[in-house]
């Protein structure tokens, strides 16, 4: 092998956590008999379920705690409810969720407009930083995008 160091004294802490027993071919599980009895532990108290929480059909219940950031809503919520009728190994679960995410984006824009907020796409995409640190690249991308858009418009307007 090339460049193989023999003296590691220049590397602070070299080998201090070396553990010959940490061989992944050894069994790693530390399960006791009671762990084989299934859902047997004393569960923490249940967080009140006062919002809609979609839960995987691969578990019997809502977990003791859960996030409340965004309950399902609107059309995206309907798609999410459909997705949660299927197991986690199924594309019928994940692909609708991806679709719901995209519908959610449109709903988010409509929601902003309904509240009188016009999304500042330039700022939301962090283009200020791009302008500051990569102005040439940004201008090139804008020029290419403008040229392609113009070409498409010209093509569409031709008889």
């Amino acid at each position, binding site marked *: 092998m090339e460049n193989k160091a023999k003296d*590691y004294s220049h590397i602070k*802490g070299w080998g201090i956590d070396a553990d010959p027993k*940490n061989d992944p071919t050894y069994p790693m599980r530390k399960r006791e008999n009671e762990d084989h009895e299934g859902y047997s532990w004393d569960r923490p108290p249940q967080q009140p379920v006062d919002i809609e929480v979609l839960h995987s059909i691969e578990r019997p219940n809502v*977990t003791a705690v859960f996030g409340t950031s965004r309950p399902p809503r609107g059309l995206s919520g309907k798609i999410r409810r459909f997705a949660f009728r299927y197991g986690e190994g199924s594309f019928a679960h994940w692909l609708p969720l*991806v679709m719901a995410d995209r519908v959610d984006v449109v709903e988010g824009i409509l929601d902003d407009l309904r509240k009188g907020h016009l*999304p500042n796409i330039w700022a939301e995409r962090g283009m200020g930083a791009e302008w500051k640190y990569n102005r040439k690249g940004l201008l090139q991308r804008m020029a290419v995008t403008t040229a392609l858009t113009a070409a498409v418009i010209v093509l569409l307007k031709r008889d």
Partner: protein
Amino acid sequence: MIAMNYRGPQRIRVDRDTPMPEILHPQDAIVRVTRACICGSDLHLYNGNVPDTRVGETFGHEFIGVVEEIGSDVTKLKVGDQVIVPFNIACGECTFCEQELYSCCHEANPQATAAGGIFGYSHMTGGYNGGQAEYVRVPYANVGPMVIPEGMHPDDAVLLTDVVPTGYHAAEMGGIQKGDTVVVFGAGPVGIMAAKSAWLFGAGRVIVFDKEEYRLDFVRKYAQCEAYNFLSISDPVVFMKKTTDSLGADVCIDAVGAEASGSKLQTVTGRKTLMQAGSATALQWAINSVKKGGVVSIVGVYGPTVNMVPIGNAVNKGVTIRGSQTSVKRLLPKLVKHVQDGILDPKAIITHHIPLEEVADGYRIFADKLDNCIKPVLVPPSANI
């Protein structure tokens, strides 16, 4: 309060009228955030690659802060404590937590059994708001949070929530034995820490691959390792074979995950069209570069569906594949000591301190690797440190 607000792929903003989080469970705490990182895995959310990422969510799973309020059953923290909050949300009581698999807690994520609870990481990991905000709700406050030791720099503390433990865990899962050749794919913050940690297990040679020269320069100095730009190598796997007497590395670490570059097929089918759960280039290279009977350790994050990887090669070569989200709580005592003893210097990887109000620019800088960015940290206006 001020909080980051996801509006869609590559669109985020700061909302100044976000409602304050509330105690919703007797074991909850409310933490005032003093530092919050943007993580490489946040970019999967940012790019819209993680299913069930809902508009309006606040990201952020790497944060520290000050306890402002506690629920009635919280006994191990008090108001005013400054705490490191592991990115895993774990009950400490289920069969998985009992085995210290805190990242697999069965009482923190109703939406999926294949993932535990994580702060600010979509509804796929529980639907919790994250720490890229002035305040955040921290469930199971008796279990995860650790009081920051006296004298520890906040920039060191915030990197102990994920980056340092995950890099260390990547090396640990490799089962590195003294003298082993270890390859790390990815010179992002986690890859840098994995390379650094590999030496602690006695690696004989550490090699890092990336495509960003400034990151390769950094990791060469910081982790005292070899580092190569895969853009200047026609086939990194062949390169690895040639440099290891045609045998391959003893341990290969995937510290990239779904955003990998290097293979047009993987990029188009993974990152661009979402036909697979991200681009699995790093994992493909890891399986093909590892020695027969070697170990592939995966800490790079992938989506929940499927990926194209050479599983046949893994079988034929007798490769052991290990992967998991890091159980931060298990590793914290040891890693805190390593930082205190000067073995690890996490804060050296922080290149940018960015006001929380400029979070959209922060994501853009990190995502596009502008201004030689390695690790950006967000500082809320109410941090006061």
